């Protein structure tokens, strides 16, 4: 027995005593923007600490129209030990829609990431033709964009595509759940297809990946841990949405499955809904609705949802009105200060949020318009 212990000791020492010094960090992220120096021009004054997700390459800082952007000093919180050039807090000229390129270099000096930072005073538009997209930096999936006055807005539409990338790394861009494809009423249109999330998705408790598109951002970091919290709905908006309308085609996939991937009977349907909500709480803290609370948050003010939808292979018009909820009234002053966020959400499976739907369900959308008062 002594001999055995005598052997364990050197082996244990061999395994533990040789732990080397901690390697330098290899990551090179902007984790968040500190915009306290821009508080007076921000569209939403509470947004001074703006988080940046790991897949973001273009950081758009929303500011009020007419703000002087010649000399701004945004600060960036970056990965520990990393360096940023030009320096965080340095004076830069962002006027005329100019994007400033910041390069973050990791602590170990081996990796870097490039970010394009701009101050945008473009207000969210209310007509969406779904013509444009850009591929992400690895060329795997589309990021749906809107072109406003010749400028490409990449940060308005969020999709679950970065999450699907984890489940099926071999898919081509149009095999992703969300894509812009030809065959619209005119030009391109939006195609949302419920895809299988593979065994990997099944393990993570999400057997299907419904096609989705929403005004807001998708945070891939929580895509596996808490998928419903990955969809951050809403863009600051200062109009009163009245009616949401557009055109659709829909075909249900063949076999419905539930959240555990078990086959169930019935047909799939799609979903479109829209919301306007208070983007700050009574203490002035930021409020962001996500997949867990977008239907029942006390911060909702207006809410509308498509009714009576079903399968059709012709472009079919839809329209629904935004109705007051929670007994709240719009505060015009708050509205003018961009105190509300607006989002429209499209999904190719009605119960996609609980991962129930049919693989293959296909929703095509074109020419969406938000009529405002």
């Amino acid at each position, binding site marked *: 027995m002594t001999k055995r212990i005598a052997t364990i000791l050197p082996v244990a020492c061999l395994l533990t005593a*040789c732990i080397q010094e901690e390697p330098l960090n290899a990551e090179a992220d902007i984790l968040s923007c500190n915009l306290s120096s821009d508080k007076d021009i921000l569209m939403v004054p509470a947004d001074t600490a703006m988080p940046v997700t790991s897949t973001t390459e273009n950081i758009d800082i929303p500011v009020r129209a007419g703000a002087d952007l010649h000399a701004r000093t945004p600060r960036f919180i970056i990965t520990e030990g990393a360096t940023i050039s030009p320096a965080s807090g340095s004076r830069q000229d962002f006027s005329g829609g100019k994007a400033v390129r910041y390069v973050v270099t990791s602590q170990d000096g081996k990796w870097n990431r490039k970010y394009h930072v701009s101050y945008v005073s473009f207000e969210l538009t209310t007509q969406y033709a779904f013509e444009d997209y850009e591929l992400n930096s690895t060329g795997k999936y589309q990021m749906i964009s809107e072109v406003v006055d010749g400028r490409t807005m990449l940060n308005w539409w969020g999709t679950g595509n970065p999450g699907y990338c984890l489940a099926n790394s071999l898919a081509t861009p149009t095999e992703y759940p969300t894509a812009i494809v030809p065959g619209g009423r005119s030009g391109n249109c939006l195609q949302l297809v419920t895809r299988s999330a593979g065994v990997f998705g099944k393990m993570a408790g999400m057997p299907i990946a419904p096609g989705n598109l929403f005004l807001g951002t998708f945070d891939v970091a929580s895509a596996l841990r808490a998928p419903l919290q990955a969809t951050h709905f809403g863009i600051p908006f200062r109009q009163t949405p009245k009616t949401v309308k557009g055109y659709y085609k829909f075909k249900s996939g063949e076999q419905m499955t539930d959240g555990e991937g078990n086959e169930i009977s019935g047909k799939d349907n799609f979903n479109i809904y829209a919301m306007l909500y208070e983007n700050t709480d009574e203490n002035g803290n930021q409020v962001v609705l996500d997949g867990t609370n977008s239907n029942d948050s006390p911060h909702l003010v207006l809410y509308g949802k498509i009714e009576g939808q079903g399968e059709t292979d012709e472009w079919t018009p839809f329209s629904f009105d935004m109705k007051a909820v929670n007994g709240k009234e719009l505060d015009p002053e708050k509205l003018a200060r961009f105190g509300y966020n607006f989002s429209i959400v499209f999904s190719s499976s009605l119960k996609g949020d609980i991962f129930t739907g049919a693989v293959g369900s296909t929703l095509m959308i074109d020419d969406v318009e938000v009529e405002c008062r």
Partner: protein
Amino acid sequence: MKKRCLITIGFLLMTSLWGAVSADEQEKQTPCASYFNAKLGYSLGGTTPFPIPAEIREIKGFKPLCNLSVQALYRIGMSERWAIQPGLRVERKGMTSDANVKNYGMTIDDGEGGTVSGRWTGDVRMTSDMLQMTLPFSAVFCCSSRWDLHAGLYMGFLLRHKFYGEVSNGYLREGDPTGAKIEIDDQPQTFDFSEEMRNLQWGATLGGEYHICPKIGIFADLNWGFNDIFVKDFTTITFGLYPVYATLGVSYSLK
């Protein structure tokens, strides 16, 4: 299972000690005679990178599997002091380790081709389990009629190999450290690299044996693997892993 191994070894050690009473007869024999020798042992060790790379920040736990080894050796006396000793051994080498790593190459697998590769920072539990048939070949130096030392090489053919585990409490950067950040909490995600392992291993063996009586002895061996347990084109784990195991046990000589 582990307990049963220990009891067996303990019992064999006891029996061999009783045998020591008749040890005096041994003194009269030539130290390096030719004879068959059977050994039963228990191996302890690990499949380890060497040196431990900086990506491994902490080893939080280590557990050997029930690593029994059975071998038959034939000692061929060459002179009074020297002998050579070919043999055949069937052995299991396995362990489970818990570690905390930083920026460690990882492919989380679903077993059906849907994988995510990248750099993992967080907890890793990995189990390496190999059953192999080994051909050891050693030179034996007989110090006395009771003590001898041996050193040599071995070649092992894997009959079964597994390397699997899970990651938790951390995040994966997809592709490289600048890729999408995927957080995984205390619900672990699994990986399995069993298919990426080599079928052939070789290494050096070094050890000693004490003959308690003419027929029964105890021995200790160190077997150090010289090639990575994974095939060359497996790049997920960025450093080589080598099996290093010490075997303790009893021997029975057919003299």
